């Protein structure tokens, strides 16, 4: 059960000035369990299959409600409110658009190119709608999140900066990433209170540079060791005659496996550092956040989840999702005023689901 951090001060909360720091940390707590989520996941899957995909909209709402309601902070849970029917409409529209886009290419190259340009031009708009939708239907303590962002910013963050990255041969990549994150965080609000990302470009460049250095050193060392071993084996083989083929094969399999491990490690390292960097430099009004994900712990968890998922032909997937989510969420805390009572709600607007569904359909991960 969640520990109630706020109960003792509720009466006086309204009069407590927010400047009354130093303050306390409210840890995020995640109460979801693999066994519970597994049953939701598999019944969702079966119903989706039986209904020829129609149920998938209801399944999405159930899944996100499960994640939100099990995420607790300061004695209250988050909630997800999207209407499955709206999601279904958005999903059908997204599939229709995707189908039209695919057909265009088969009519003529020109039509295909026009389609491609249209998709690229429309993508920032879709991403903006998606962010609006996600935040609009997420709440905490009955206050909705909001995303009152300018469309111009979406074109800058999701079209201009990626293009500049391409023209600069990736040199502007870390800066482009920061701009996209800033667009997401700085425009997000909890009720009337705005989030702000204080991260600097230097921090993003350092993270990317270290990640590349890490990958180069690890893969380079592996390559060097394998090369030496292989050389030794082939020399021995020419003396002792054939028969060492098994050793070479073993070396190749081991090499591929090790490269895979190194890749997962680098991914875990980047994810851990990125989460820490972003949350540690995010503020919400007077509050700030701390995140303490450890790359080695995340690596161990990711590795275990992947291996078990493969060994169980995918059945471990829901357990893995929960384990990773629990680890990453519970490493985050909100630091600020004693009480979380003083956030005012904002106006509510309806948001159509098309953006979120299109983004999900195209498998774009905007959480990065």
């Amino acid at each position: 059960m969640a520990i109630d951090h706020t109960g003792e001060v509720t009466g006086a909360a309204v009069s407590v000035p927010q400047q009354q720091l130093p303050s306390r940390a409210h840890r995020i707590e995640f109460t979801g369990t693999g066994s519970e989520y597994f049953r939701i996941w598999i019944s969702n899957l079966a119903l989706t299959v039986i209904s020829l995909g129609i149920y998938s909209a209801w399944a999405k709402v159930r899944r996100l409600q499960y994640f939100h309601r099990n995420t607790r902070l300061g004695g209250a849970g988050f909630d997800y409110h999207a209407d499955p029917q709206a999601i279904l409409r958005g999903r059908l529209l997204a599939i229709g658009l995707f189908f039209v886009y695919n057909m265009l290419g088969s009519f003529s190259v020109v039509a295909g190119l026009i389609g491609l340009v249209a998709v690229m031009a429309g993508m920032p708009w879709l991403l903006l709608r998606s962010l609006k939708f996600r935040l609009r239907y997420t709440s905490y303590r009955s206050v909705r999140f909001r995303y009152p962002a300018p469309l111009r910013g979406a074109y800058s963050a999701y079209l201009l900066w990626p293009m500049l990255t391409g023209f600069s041969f990736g040199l502007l990549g870390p800066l482009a990433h920061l701009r996209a994150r800033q667009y997401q965080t700085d425009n997000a609000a909890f009720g009337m209170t705005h989030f702000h990302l204080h991260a600097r470009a230097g921090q993003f460049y350092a993270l990317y540079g270290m990640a590349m250095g890490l990958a180069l050193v690890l893969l380079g060392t592996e390559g060097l060791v394998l090369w030496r071993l292989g050389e030794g084996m082939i020399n021995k083989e020419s003396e002792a005659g054939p028969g060492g083929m098994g050793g070479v094969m073993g070396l190749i399999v081991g090499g591929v496996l090790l490269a895979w491990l190194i890749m997962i490690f680098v991914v875990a390292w980047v994810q851990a550092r990125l989460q820490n960097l972003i949350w540690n430099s995010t503020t919400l009004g007077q509050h700030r956040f701390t995140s303490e994900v450890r790359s080695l712990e995340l690596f161990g968890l990711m590795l275990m989840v992947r291996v078990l998922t493969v060994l169980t032909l995918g059945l471990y997937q829901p357990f893995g999702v929960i384990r990773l989510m629990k680890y990453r969420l519970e490493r985050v805390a909100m630091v600020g005023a004693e009480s979380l009572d003083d956030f005012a709600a904002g106006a509510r607007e309806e948001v159509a689901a098309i953006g979120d569904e299109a983004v999900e359909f195209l498998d774009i991960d905007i959480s990065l």
Partner: protein
Amino acid sequence: MQGQVLDVLNAAYFDGRSSRRYSISLTVSDGVLHLAGDGVDRHEPLASVRVSEPMGPARILSFADGAHCEVTDLEALSRLLDATGHRDGWVVRVQRRWDVALASFAVIAVVLAAGYIWLLPWTAERIAAALPELIVSQIERNVMTQIDHVLSPSELDDSRQKALQERLAGYARLLPDAPPVRVAFRKGGPVGANALALPGGQIIVTDELVNLARDDDDIAAVMSHELGHVAGRHGLRQAVHSTVIGLVVGWMVGDFSSVLAIAPTVYLQTHYSRDFEREADDYGARLMRANGLSPSRLADMLERIQTSHQPASGAAGKSLEDVQKQSGITDYFSTHPSTAERLRRLREN
């Protein structure tokens, strides 16, 4: 609700206007939910209260204006809900049960198996037949470019190439439904004696195969088999199979980049490939018989090709059966049906 007051329930109330948490108590009487305490005094008809499904450590009673109560005393709440006649939806009741989870698993397994056995081959055939020529020729150009990275231009002279192409085209004329014959020659090099059919209908024969044959009818026999792949659009169907299987396995294993996903994908495809080889063998045999030739020529060629691929020292003096037995498990995973079985089929006809 017949007027009696049930349990008093402690809950947190949030009014929808701010994040303030009010500690309140909940009671029900005369079909009305009463909220009291911490300055709150609210009364809502039960009919207008939405009850969340049991999920996580709290259940939520929400009101039309965006306010809600969060109740963590789940047992007391369910007693209260029972007394008011509230009943969760059937999905909610069902999705917590392990026997239902097991049944769901069975449903998914059956659907996946049926999709693999019937739906995927059926769809792949339709897609291969409906794919516009423009796309097919584009795919073929790409494959051809890749092939030309590995193979070098043929060293056979033009008139010889033309004669062989003419011979197959002449054979194919006897089958009314035969696809157009397009044959190109390449020097096999690393792949040795070989022949393959590309998705768009292009057949490629290596110089090594031409040199391995006893006469031109032998070469035509192998080309008939490849023409069978073309007639059945096997290349395209194979492409659809591998795409769909790759997507499903990738989704199940949850990671597209994972090396570990490749093995099951390759294994699941072999089943279809074996069917395609058999189909192409039958087509080749039909084409040859229509021209008064024995299908056993194809069998002979298969044997020679296989022997030519064995390392010179190892295979000499061994029968094909021995080689088959030795390879054991590798044959199980090979894309071709066991060669012994194919030879038997071709020679029995």
